[in-house]
């Protein structure tokens, strides 16, 4: 496959991604378009805190990203002997600190919203049904498609930060202000990660069939991400709108 065709397919996939991210932003605006009580905010905050601690979008570890990194911290340094290994460990530490800080930010807001501490025992039960389905889809893809599946999962990770993009603009009460600050931090962190998911695909995919398969997997994940967003905000799932978004009937989220 020549470079120009790869570039076309990559651009098309990026545009499809941005339409799904716009769909996520639309759901966020639907929820935050009116004043929300602390309890309504706490509903999605519990899932967000769960996802920051346990969400295993990037790694298959059932303990989640933060625990996986923390557990390996001490052992990993034993391998940091060459320049490249030291750079790898430094990168791991940076990701760990970033992810942990995201957990901390939302756990702190949740405490403000509920006045209750975030207990580890309760946290385990905060995953919502649509997020469990999303996790199951990712896991199935990971198992069935291997490294190819990981690339598709990476592409969809974070949903283009649409959630944080919208969340950083909410205001009107102390909880909303704290949410906006947390979203601003996460959005800024995520921006730095950019659209490397599409670049990885461009490097790895080499035939029309592979690109079509990647598109199919990404569509499946993104559709479930939209259901997860509806569920997160306790909004009814609008399958008709999900179908429209899949068909491209939405303006893509602008590139930041």
């Amino acid at each position, binding site marked *: 496959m020549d470079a120009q065709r790869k570039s076309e397919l990559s651009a098309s996939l990026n545009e499809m991604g941005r339409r799904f991210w716009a769909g996520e932003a639309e759901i966020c605006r639907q929820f935050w378009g009116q004043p929300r009580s602390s309890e309504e905010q706490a509903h999605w905050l519990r899932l967000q805190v769960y996802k920051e601690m346990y969400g295993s979008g990037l790694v298959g570890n059932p303990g989640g990203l933060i625990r996986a990194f923390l557990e390996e911290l001490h052992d990993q340094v034993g391998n940091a002997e060459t320049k490249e290994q030291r*750079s790898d460990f*430094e990168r791991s530490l940076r990701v760990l600190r970033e992810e942990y800080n995201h957990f901390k930010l939302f*756990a702190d807001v949740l405490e403000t919203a509920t006045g209750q501490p975030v207990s580890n025992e309760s946290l385990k039960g905060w995953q919502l049904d649509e997020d469990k389905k999303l996790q199951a889809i990712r896991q199935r893809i990971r198992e069935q498609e291997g490294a190819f599946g990981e690339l598709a999962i990476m592409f969809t990770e974070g949903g283009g930060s649409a959630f944080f993009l919208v969340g950083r603009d909410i205001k009107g009460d102390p909880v909303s202000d704290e949410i906006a600050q947390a979203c601003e931090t996460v959005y800024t962190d995520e921006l730095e990660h950019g659209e490397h998911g599409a670049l990885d695909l461009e490097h790895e995919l080499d035939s029309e069939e592979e690109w079509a398969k990647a598109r199919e997997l990404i569509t499946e994940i993104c559709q479930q991400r939209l259901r997860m967003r509806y569920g997160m905000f306790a909004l009814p799932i609008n399958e008709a709108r999900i179908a429209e978004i899949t068909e491209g009937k939405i303006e893509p989220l602008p590139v930041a």
Partner: protein
Amino acid sequence: MTTTAELTDLMAELNSLGESFWAGEAEIAREFLMAAHDPKDHVHWLLHQCYRELRGPGLLDRPSSRTRWVVDNIAAGLPAAETAEGRTQLKYQLHQIAEEFDHFKLYADILGGPVKMEDMRGLSLPSDKVIEALRVKLYAENERLARLAYDFTEGGGAGIFYAQGALETNDPLLLRIKDAGRYIYDDEVPHGQHGVSGIELNLTTAEDFQKIRAMIVEIGRERLRMRAEMHDTTMSEARIDEITAGKIEPLKPFAD
């Protein structure tokens, strides 16, 4: 009862004492760095500084270290994640670990080639053992004051990093050392301020000040011997006495 004015004077005296020791550590490093050396002559101190940067936070095994705290916290089910204070503490510990690793990496990259962890474990100097024994003795005498004294003297006021950062040289190796030193100096200076505030906030009697002064003198003098050994030299007891008596120019802050 000690008056506020008297406490201010005692604090100024401690700061002045600290500044003499920091300048003493800088003097040792400066004299070594300004003498003519083959690149291989730098290996000894670079390796020892790598050892210190890893051992300090416990990335090389050390009891009661930051890394041990994180590892134990995970083993206990991550209780730190359950309270705002705990979450802040964990964030702080991760930040410190990352910073120390960053410093290790700067020196290890100057050494070039693999820096074997196995080799690092055996690098403890005779003077390190003396310092460790002193720590045990001072903690046994008065744990509260010893903790404050060690916080105050931690990093030796970044004296050796100051000396590196202040180098005037065109030598490529020394330029790398200069860059690393300046970077670490800028990181370390706020830690020194933390140690000063610890004493300011916690000491209220002249008697405690005299005890902690004696501890700082003991630690500071041993640190000078350790820095000298690390740089393959010795410092005369007469010079150590002079530094203890303040007969040394304090370090001037960098202009930029």
